């Protein structure tokens, strides 16, 4: 005769089933998560109007290339800016303090600062406030260097520099290219060719691209 | 020698028993049916009737009853052991004894002798007539009268009554009575005694009262009286 017994194995199986069902409960409370993406970033108008500032591209403490706005004062500049950019060489870019420039009003603000002034300001290095925030130039960019002239108007902006451009690191070149590009074009959408004492570099575009803002 | 009327339907049994008894010196008449036996009764005038219980048409019990209507002829039934009910019915109908078939002639002969003996050898050492209450027993004449009226008793009934009344108030076991009255062995069928007592009571006792002459002693047997 075969006897039907309640085998221990079956009991174990049932216990396992029960434990499985209760498993979700074992992680009670709030669990940690990994880093999760959550939509678009904050987008705002942080920069002063284009006519009153230049965008200088410095290296952040984290090694990133960042656009740093610097306020400029040029009460004398009104209507003098001609197509010939060489006159801009005497432009004064305020470097000692980044703020407190007298607000410019009216049609005086309609023209941005010429690229030569921006590049010159970049080569001069970050000012005191910018240095306090940790910004700096790439080491290969010599403080003593200066820009001769910048030719705009074509699809390519040509920046003539009194230095050896081939010795510049990629970071240093990007600083120059971006600063020149954003000075020559509102959204930096031009290619820049660096020309130095030792030759000419191929035209390049700024790696910090202005992107279309995601819709809300 | 006794004259025996044999009523038996089976030819071989009839012939065998007839032959055996005749060799013993009995005068035997054999009949094949109950009717033929009753007819032969008047002409043959037998001393004893040897009656097979199982007969075609009129059976042994009926023949027994018919004979007892006007005769106290000794009757021995031939029967097969195991036909217990038939034995009781036959005994109640008035048979004095029974023999189980098959039986040797010497057994049949012994039974016939026993049944006939008491009648042929009366005890005459006693007063002619004894009076027991309303019952007069003539031991010499083998007659019994109750309140003056003669009572017809079959041989076994008469022998039982004589045996019991010879020693009034003495208890006889049924085995004892079987041996004394019927010449049966100790272990024979006590129903023989019981049936005989039943028949005797019907004839001599007052039917409205409990038995007076033949009394039962529970667990021991029967006794005569006390009156």
């Amino acid at each position: 005769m075969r006897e039907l017994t309640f085998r221990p194995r079956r009991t174990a199986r049932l216990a396992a089933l029960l434990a499985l069902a209760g498993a979700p409960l074992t992680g009670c409370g709030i669990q940690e998560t990994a880093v999760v993406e959550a939509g678009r970033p904050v987008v705002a108008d942080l920069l002063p109007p284009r006519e009153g500032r230049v965008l200088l591209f410095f290296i952040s403490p984290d090694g990133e290339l960042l656009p740093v706005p610097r306020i400029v004062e040029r009460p004398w500049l009104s209507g003098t800016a001609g197509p010939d950019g060489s006159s801009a060489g005497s432009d004064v870019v305020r470097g000692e303090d980044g703020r407190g420039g007298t607000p410019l009003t009216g049609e005086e603000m309609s023209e941005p600062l010429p690229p030569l002034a921006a590049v010159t300001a970049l080569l001069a290095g970050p000012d005191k406030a910018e240095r306090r925030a940790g910004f700096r130039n790439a080491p290969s960019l010599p403080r003593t260097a200066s820009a001769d002239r910048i030719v705009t108007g074509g699809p390519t902006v040509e920046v003539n520099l009194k230095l050896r451009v081939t010795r510049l690191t990629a970071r240093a070149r990007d600083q120059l290219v971006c600063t020149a590009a954003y000075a020559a074009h509102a959204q930096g959408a031009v290619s820049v060719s660096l020309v130095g004492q030792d030759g000419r570099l191929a035209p390049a575009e700024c790696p910090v691209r202005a992107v279309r803002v995601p819709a809300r | 020698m006794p004259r025996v009327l044999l009523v038996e339907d089976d030819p071989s049994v009839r012939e065998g028993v007839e032959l055996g008894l005749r060799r013993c010196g009995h005068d035997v008449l054999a009949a094949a049916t109950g009717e033929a036996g009753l007819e032969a009764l008047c002409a043959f005038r037998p001393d004893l009737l040897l009656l097979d219980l199982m007969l075609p048409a009129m059976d042994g019990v009926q023949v027994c009853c018919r004979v007892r209507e006007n005769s106290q002829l000794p009757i021995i039934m031939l029967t097969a052991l195991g036909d217990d009910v038939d034995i009781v019915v036959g005994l109640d109908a008035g048979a004095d004894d029974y023999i189980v078939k098959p039986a040797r002639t010497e057994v049949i002969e012994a039974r016939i002798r026993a049944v006939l003996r008491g009648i042929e050898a009366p005890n005459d050492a006693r007063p002619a007539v004894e009076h027991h209450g309303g019952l007069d027993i003539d031991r010499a004449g083998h007659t019994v009268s109750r309140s003056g009226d003669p009572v017809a008793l079959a041989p076994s009934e008469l022998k039982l009554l004589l045996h019991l009344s010879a020693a009034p108030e003495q208890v006889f076991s049924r085995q004892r009575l079987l041996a004394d009255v019927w010449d049966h062995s100790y272990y024979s069928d006590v129903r023989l005694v019981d049936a005989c007592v039943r028949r005797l009571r019907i004839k001599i006792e007052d039917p409205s009262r409990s038995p007076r002459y033949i009394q039962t002693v529970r667990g021991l047997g029967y006794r005569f009286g006390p009156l």
Partner: protein
Amino acid sequence: MPTAASAFGLRTRLVLAFLLVAAVSAVTTAALTYREARSAVLVRAQDTAVASFREEAERFVPSLPLDPESLRWNLYDIAARAKPHPWIVFAEYGSLRASSGDRPVSGVLTAELRRTAHTSPHGTFERVVKDGKAYLTIGMPVMTRVVAGGRAVPSGLVLFAVMPMTNEEVDIDALVTAARDGALPGLAVALVPALLAARSVLRPVRELRRAAHSMGGGQLDTRIAVRGRDEMAALASTFNESAARLEHSVQELQDAGTRARRFASDVSHELRTPLAGMLAVTDVLDEDAGTLDPDTARAVRLISAETGKLAMLVEDLMEISRFDARAVSLVTDEVDAAEAVRSTLSGRQWLDRIRTELPEGFRIRLDPRRFDVIVANLVGNALRHGAEPVTVRLSKRGGALIVEVHDNGPGIAPDALPHIFDRFYKADAARARSSGSGLGLAITEENVRLHGGTIHARNAPGGGALFTVELPFEGPASASGAPDGPLPAQASEPPDSRDGNGATA
């Protein structure tokens, strides 16, 4: 090996199984519900926090170049509009650090979140558990449009919010409590249908057991009502079919047995009539044999002797047939045992051959004719197969009379002992054709059983076979269960009177 579970009854196991299923489903449901609810609570809190943080940051973001002093005020503004719970806002710009709280940097923010916020163009969040408390940390890089309404570039400014999730923890703990408090009463409620279901399953089982018990007790016509079409119904109909087949088989066996017994009885009956005729003339043959030719005389004497034996055999067969057909009756009387034994011995002229120890005074209720058969068969057997002296001894043990018949022969072979009361069993092959019918001991045993007694055969310690019969003094009625079947064991007292009333003065 009995397991712990098999120690429980079927009902307990059924109820436990039901409860187990109920528990599994309750726990599973509670667990899944809890997960969903917890997830919903957290997602809502997170989505609200991320969206409102982005919104407030866009409203109150400081302009560049950064002024560290005014930056703090901006952060205060954002922190003041925390939703759904208060948060602390941190800002990183270059190496500048600022916050709306006591310390400019947070210990909750992970390096992973900070790195992602600095490099990814998306908002990000991370749940952090620190010191047992859960926090939601959100990282928001700030992009600035280059010109109003135009395209945007990363500004280098990153804002963080750290929000403790105290309320969510409370809510989720409440969920666990609710699930637990709901599951336990649910199990208790499940006990009721479990018991009901167990009962409905067990009722047919109980019926089946009762029916099987009834079958075992001989009620072969027992059947079970088949209800429904489930497994129990199938079992019931199988039981019914088996019972019907069993009943049929038993009936056939009984019929066959009855036919066999009736045949034996009929044969005996038919043999008896010719035997009656033959037996009546054997005396004639014996007497006249002396006058015949010697060969004829031997033949005639043989026929005479064998006819006698044949008659005995037929009588014994008839007796056995009556026992088989249960057509035997006891005609009991109260007798003296010693007297009865003496009558048997003297009736067969054995008194001077047999030693007896017959104490007087053993009154016993029995059938004298059958007792005679018992004693005569045992003594006859001892005389035939044993050796003299044969002793018959009466004694008393408890409520029973002991009759012992002992001979001084070689005894009974051990392998023959169990069969000594079988019909036609011949213990001694050499004497296979003995003078007995071969039924004597079988009839003896039947007669003893009819009296409610017992009979045993064994070899006495001093040698010789010893047969012991025990008969209850009070007759067969006092012995419990001795005669099986409906035996008409009628005690025939001497009839008191026609009126049936005893007149023992």
